[in-house]
């Protein structure tokens, strides 16, 4: 598991030496995963070479909008954030939990297959680091440890990347998850590129990170270079357009179950489940038990599920959350309020994916504000009418 070793020394890795980083990690035995172009987007997938990176590409994101566009430079990490998060590797969308066979009147569960190979993620944004920490709390720090997550998380090597620009739907500054990477990484990179130079300021966050660093052709960063991660991310923070007002957020949502805004949202929401699929902290799953045609062999598979589906809350007789309104309310109340009581933090990391990938562009930050305003207005009306009666 990654830990934060207190290293105030920063280093510089030239972009021409970046391939070394990938090679060293692969050499240690990691499966290297990073950003790459596919399906008209920047996604996270297996990479082997620097040329696999989305060099010179960026993504323009807004509500219900994602466009891949060319940059003027050849930055490696000049995009904002992939549609799907690293959760697809740590908490896979489909996992076979076990197989079993009938045997002499009883059944045997077959031994587990080999453990998955250790992974190295390159390009993890600050908000994504926080999302991983949030999922750690769910899957590792609860009463029951999820062996699937744990097997993939315990040997994970994280190369984080500071954001050089804010995305159109980002709001990490509202929830204290970025843009600057603070902790939870092995190595953190800040890309510096202009017409003259192209290098990375490297910070070490753990012993494993230190170990990898010793195999890279780095030089110490000078005083000016060492300040760049902060300068760059301060600038990124100033670009952030959206704001989630977290004042009294739990209390607000706990007392808003009958807020009329939910009905308004329900008119737009398609319950398509996109938001839950792209959200880096959503963790709900379902379990499928199947058998083969002979009935002798059975399997249990775990798959991602979404609270937006009709039968998510099905108990004999019907679904508890039947209406679209109740399902959207459940998702948002969970993400921004009940999560706090359950896990001690907000469930949202401000990555903005749900806004980008919602086909009708529902913006969680705007909706929270609308709920707040609707509540305030409702209370004001009550006060006025009480005055009239008194």
């Amino acid at each position, binding site marked *: 598991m990654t830990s934060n070793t207190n290293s105030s020394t920063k280093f510089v890795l030239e972009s021409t030496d970046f391939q070394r980083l990938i090679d060293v990690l692969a050499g240690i035995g990691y499966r290297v995963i990073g950003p790459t172009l596919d399906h008209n987007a920047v996604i996270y997938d297996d990479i082997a070479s620097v040329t696999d990176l989305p060099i010179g590409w960026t993504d323009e994101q807004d509500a219900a909008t994602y466009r891949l566009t060319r940059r003027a430079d050849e930055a490696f990490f000049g995009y904002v954030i992939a549609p799907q998060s690293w959760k697809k590797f740590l908490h896979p969308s489909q996992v076979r939990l076990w197989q079993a066979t009938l045997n002499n009147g009883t059944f045997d569960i077959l031994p587990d297959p080999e453990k998955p190979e250790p992974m190295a993620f390159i390009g993890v944004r600050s908000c994504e680091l926080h999302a991983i920490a949030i999922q750690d709390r769910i899957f590792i720090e609860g*009463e029951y440890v999820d062996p699937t997550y744990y097997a993939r998380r315990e040997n994970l090597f994280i190369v984080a990347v500071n954001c050089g620009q804010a995305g159109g739907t980002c709001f990490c500054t509202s929830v204290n998850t970025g843009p600057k990477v603070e902790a939870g990484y092995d190595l953190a990179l800040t890309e510096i590129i202009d017409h003259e130079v192209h290098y990375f300021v490297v910070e070490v966050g753990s012993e494993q990170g230190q170990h990898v660093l010793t195999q890279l052709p780095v030089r110490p960063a000078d005083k000016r270079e060492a300040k760049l991660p902060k300068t760059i991310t301060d600038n990124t923070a100033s670009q952030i357009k959206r704001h989630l007002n977290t004042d009294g957020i739990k209390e607000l949502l706990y007392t808003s179950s009958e807020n009329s805004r939910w009905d308004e949202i329900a008119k737009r929401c398609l319950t398509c489940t996109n938001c839950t699929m792209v959200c880096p902290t959503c*963790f709900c799953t379902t*379990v499928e*038990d199947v058998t083969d045609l002979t009935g002798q062999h059975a399997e249990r598979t775990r798959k991602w599920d979404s609270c937006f589906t009709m039968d998510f809350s099905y108990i*004999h*007789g019907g679904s508890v959350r*039947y209406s679209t*309104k109740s399902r959207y309310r459940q998702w948002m109340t969970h993400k921004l309020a009940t999560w706090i*009581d359950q896990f001690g933090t907000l469930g949202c990391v401000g990555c903005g994916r749900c806004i980008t990938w919602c086909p009708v562009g529902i913006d969680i930050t705007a909706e929270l504000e609308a709920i707040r305003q609707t509540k305030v207005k409702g209370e004001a009306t009550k006060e006025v009418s009480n005055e009239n009666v008194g």
Partner: protein
Amino acid sequence: MINLPSQTTTRQLTDPMKPEPFRVKRVMKESYDTFTLELEPVATDRQFTFAPGQFNMLYMFGVGEIPISISGDPNQPGMLVHTTRIVGSVTKAMSKLKAGDVLGVRGPFGTGWPVSAAKGCDVILVAGGIGLAPLRPVLYQTLAHRDRYGKVVLLYGCRSPEDILFRKELEKWRARFDLEIFVTVDYGDSDWHGNVGVVTKLIPKAPFDALNAVAMICGPEVMMRFTAIELQKRGVDGESIALSMERNMKCAIGLCGHCQFGPTFICKDGPVFNYPQLQSWLAQWEV
């Protein structure tokens, strides 16, 4: 606030999603759609212990898995008992089990009824329909240590006389002088000489000291809501009322997200809750 016994795990499960094989010793038909399974572990060295109120995930090979409360005697660890209604494909497959068949068990999970918190108090159990099954272990427990409790009263409502669960056992218990059982049905035929009407009707006249009682309610959610109100009308403190909730469950270990009810996970923060904990959420629609 009375303390609910926290999750008891009888042993450290290496993978909590893997069921253990249990063999059916006996299947008893309770009514036209309800049956009881008596199970014992296939592994002979295994003892199964649980707290009244806890549940298991029962797995029918290749068909599926569902949460069912344990309905047996906690002082008989050699035998695992479950009573269930046929409500879907898994329970339908279960109803066809015969002695010698094997099914999978994961558990026990969840919080238990406040049986030890009830020491020195009157114990009032209110059961609706199949809700009697998760409360039966409380009866076994209180009767096994009868001198620890004050009056023990069971109020039980079900659909009709044919639907009365554990009838022979109830009749036997009713004959005791230290236990009071009142049964009511939604409608009766001419052979029925007992009470007719909803179970909440039995509360105003039930023989217990409202100011020194611990109440445990189990049944359909509407019934539990109205029962809690009726008990409070009688003078029972909300803090002394416990109820058992139910929601869709897939994992039973707090990781699949399905069983959430407000901020609680029914599989690990419940299924037994103190009434004040849930009061505001129970009143809301579609939670």
